[in-house]
């Protein structure tokens, strides 16, 4: 399985210039790390790959799966972890995970496994709004993994986290992707994640070469 972006261009509404033009890039079913300075278009590329944005030109395809951007794709195949809060703040940790799993049709029991791995089992009944930043980020990762997605996209998953929290997340992602059944793309500046990467793409250089 692979995500293929072909001749991809994107310009934000009202902007004069494209973030990138005629980009061809593929993400196979292992862990790809995207590097690059802030504003070079990493997050935009991740949103296009997920189907959250429609390309100005070009196409995004996920081999063997539905087209990105469809409700079915969101429900069953995609887990996306954003930089900002991306949890339901009024719901408990456990409820956040169960909801995502139930929508995806994944076994709810898996939630327990990831809660334990990410050190959240004791916090499972607590509303998300009463958790610290690091705990919330771990919940977001746990929810993404409990869904058993075929496409896992993480946007700066460890930014601003201390070593312990970052290590926990790194371990969890490594375990999840070990089977090689998932396309995992991570946009990050954090070099601590290098050791779980199968591919490392310097997106800025990649764009320069492409031009």
């Amino acid at each position, binding site marked *: 399985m692979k995500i293929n972006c072909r001749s991809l261009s994107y310009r934000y509404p009202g902007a004069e210039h494209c973030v990138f033009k005629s980009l061809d890039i593929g993400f196979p079913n292992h862990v790809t790390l995207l590097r690059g300075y802030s504003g070079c278009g990493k997050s935009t590329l991740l949103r296009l790959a997920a189907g*959250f944005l429609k390309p100005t030109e070009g196409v995004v395809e996920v081999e063997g799966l539905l087209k990105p951007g469809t409700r079915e794709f*969101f429900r069953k195949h995609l887990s996306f972890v954003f*930089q900002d809060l*991306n*949890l*339901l703040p*009024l*719901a408990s940790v456990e409820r956040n995970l169960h*909801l995502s799993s139930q929508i995806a049709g994944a076994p709810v029991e898996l939630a327990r496994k990831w809660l334990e791995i990410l050190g959240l089992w004791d916090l499972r009944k607590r509303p998300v709004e009463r958790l610290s930043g690091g705990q919330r980020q771990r919940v977001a990762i746990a929810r993404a993994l409990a869904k058993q997605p075929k496409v896992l996209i993480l946007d700066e998953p460890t930014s601003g986290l201390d070593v312990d929290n970052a290590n926990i997340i790194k371990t969890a992602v490594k375990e999840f992707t070990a089977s090689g059944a998932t396309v995992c793309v991570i946009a990050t500046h954090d070099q601590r994640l290098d050791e779980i990467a199968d591919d490392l793409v310097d997106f800025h250089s990649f764009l320069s070469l492409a031009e």
Partner: protein
Amino acid sequence: MTWWIFIHFYLWQNSLRRWWEQPLSLLSKLVVAGLLGMLGAFVILGLRELGAQLDRRLNDRETLAVVISETIPKSAAAGIISSEETGGDSWRLLGNGVSTFLQAAASAEVGDGPRVPVVAVANPERHGLVDDFYLLTRRLPENQAVEFLVGKHRSEAWTRLPPDDVNLLMGGRDVLMGDVVRLSAVLSNGFTRSTILHAGSLADVRTAHDIGMAMSRVEGRQLVIQSNLRILLELEKVRSIQAQSLWWVTIGSSAVLGLVFGSLAWMEFREERYLLSLIRTFGVGRWTLLAHALIENCILATGGVLLGFGFLQLVISRMNLDALKMSWLGAAGSLYGSEGQVLLLGAALGGILACLPIAIGLRKPLGLVLK
């Protein structure tokens, strides 16, 4: 389906929390809807009272009765008296009953009282009178013989209560009545022929007027037509205004609610756009989220209007309406009928209109909202 229930549960939990944290937004929605509901109730009750007043005025008289009067000169009197047809039957097609009375130019002396009009009927038995003279009066007991004098003719008449048609024609005055043959000598000097038509509908009353005017114009006859046509038309107009006003109040309320709720809902949506977009990334459709906003707005709009009705009733129950000459407001309890339901529907429509900006907002690509 469990997730679907949970999503709705979560959305309601979120709404309740928003109401709790921003009570002014909730209150302003309820107050606006309530005020519009009270205003609508005032308009409905006011118009209803206007219609009832006209109804009462009409009930004082024979509502759909038409009186067609024509003065017959001496030269034509003999011809009409001698014919079997006294002139009223031609109106029969327009109504349920027709009575014709011929009022002589002369009057009768009865005892020491004032002179009374002399009226002849072609078919006295239709009014419950057999072949004789009758004094139709309310002053004297029934079946009493009284002496009268018409011209040089002196005779006796039996007292009777006046039938409705005679009352309508003579306005409650005493009348000396007999059949046409008995009174032919008096009638031969000329008389006024009055036909009372009990029309079947307002349209028949109007037709009677049209026919009467046409007869006056074409045949040169001097017909005088009296009826409640003016009041009936007024009543019809009030009823039409009543119906139109209800619609205008409903449409106006919907528009105002749509605008007020829409702007508040848009502000709330802007605060919650991130959360809603996040829920959409789980694969929850726009329609599910829109349906929630729609139900929430409809509940607040109709709830506000019902609160307005309730508040109005509470205020009314504590007021002395008769002293304030506002007893018509006492009918506020009947607002839960069809008119109140139309107002509630209008409020719900306002709630639906308020969702338009949300529907537009939900079309924004997820990637432009989520960071």
